[in-house]
């Protein structure tokens, strides 16, 4: 059990991403709570800007565009890119053009 994932998905901000269909987003005063019904993991979005980004990812061709649309200039994107990559690692986000396997 718990063998290392065969091919860990790497977050590429120049591609399109969306929430996994088993992820539920609950708005909170500090941001939002995410819960993945498949992995049964909980995550936190710690401000409302990242909530806006995550919620609108699917509407944009790639993550960079979603970040810019949320008012985050390219020079300021690093912490958000990091946050999104963490969400990709925990399978909260998946590639738009990928079939979901779990």
């Amino acid at each position, binding site marked *: 059990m*718990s063998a290392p994932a065969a091919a860990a998905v790497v977050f590429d901000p120049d591609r399109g991403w969306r929430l996994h269909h*088993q992820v*539920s987003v609950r708005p909170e005063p*500090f941001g939002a709570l995410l*819960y993945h*019904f498949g992995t*049964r993991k909980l995550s936190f979005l*710690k*401000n409302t800007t990242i909530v806006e980004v995550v919620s609108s990812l699917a509407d944009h061709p790639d993550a960079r565009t979603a970040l810019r649309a949320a008012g985050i200039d390219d020079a300021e994107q690093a912490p958000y890119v990091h946050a999104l990559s963490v969400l990709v690692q925990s399978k909260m986000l998946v590639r738009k053009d990928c079939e979901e396997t779990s």
Partner: protein
Amino acid sequence: MTTMQPVPRLVDQFELGLDAPICLTWELTYACNLSCVHCLSSSGKRDPRELSTRQCMDIIDELERMQVFYVNIGGGEPTVRPDFWELVDYATAHHVGVKFSTNGVRITPAVAAKLAASDYVDVQISLDGATAEVNDEVRGPGSFAMAIRALENLAEAGFKDAKISVVVTRHNVDQLDDFKALADQYGATLRITRLRPSGRGADVWDELHPTPAQQVQLYDWLVARGERVLTGDSFFHLSGLGEPGALAGLNLCGAGGVVCLIDPVGDVYACPFAIHDKFLAGNILSDGGFDNVWKNAPLFRELREPQSAGACSGCGHYDACRGGCMAAKFFTGLPLDGPDPECVQGYGEPALALERNKPKSSVDHSRSGGRKAPIPLKLLTIPPKKFCNESPV
């Protein structure tokens, strides 16, 4: 405009309480085929006032509206309710995930196959010894074999990642590696939690709770091997033993702020370890629904206020352990604004040595005439078949 706003730490947010629990524990029945000596809900006999199927479904509807992600269903033994599977299906169909705790009595091969087919149900098999000898002393004769049978059935049905749920005691703390091996054997995940002096646990806590040396042993094991072990964030009283963050998880008391308990008659308590009038926030049926109790109960509002460090205010570890577990203090007769009975700085021991008034239980569904300590285990029988014949529900 787009710089990251400073936000309060999540821990602080959580202590102020959320508009809805993240998850909650829901004891569906006080009926149980076992009589574990440390049962924190003093279960045994069904309560005649237990919620009907319709009332349970209404609560699930409310949880869906509040976006409570999942419920931890327990009891008693929840699977002895004839409508148990119906309620599980109803909850998952309404986007409320289900994790349920069971001693395994109803996890037949057929049930295991059904569970394996669902993405939204998680199963937790309770086991308090890695051997029958250690387990059955606490949970009753035959209970080890019953739990293992359930794990076998789940594994054979292809159910992925069941949980083995262990309450850490003086007698099983040396078996942590064995539990881990057992979990690995069945493709399961180990979950270990703290023994609370709640319910019948109050009667046996003095003899069963880990010694101070064992607390350190447990902490070291968690730091070294706990990465893939779940703890229900229940060991925050140990935080002071090492660097902040050494223990995985949030490790804070979420009572009335991010978690709570719904009992079989619809009473809402601050947490699963606090079934007592002192921690009763209200009743779902008589106090205008769960949402109203959660948001407006005076007890919950009080719990979301900044808490006084009291006697612990001079201690450098207060930030780490926050004074420990409220229920553990209350049921051992210690003041709520003082140290935890298992305080790792040693402040609990002298407090326990003083004259204490342990609170009498206000809710008790134990069989055979109520709680008494110690319970003569040899007299117990576990007759799963009897339950089919005369269902307590």
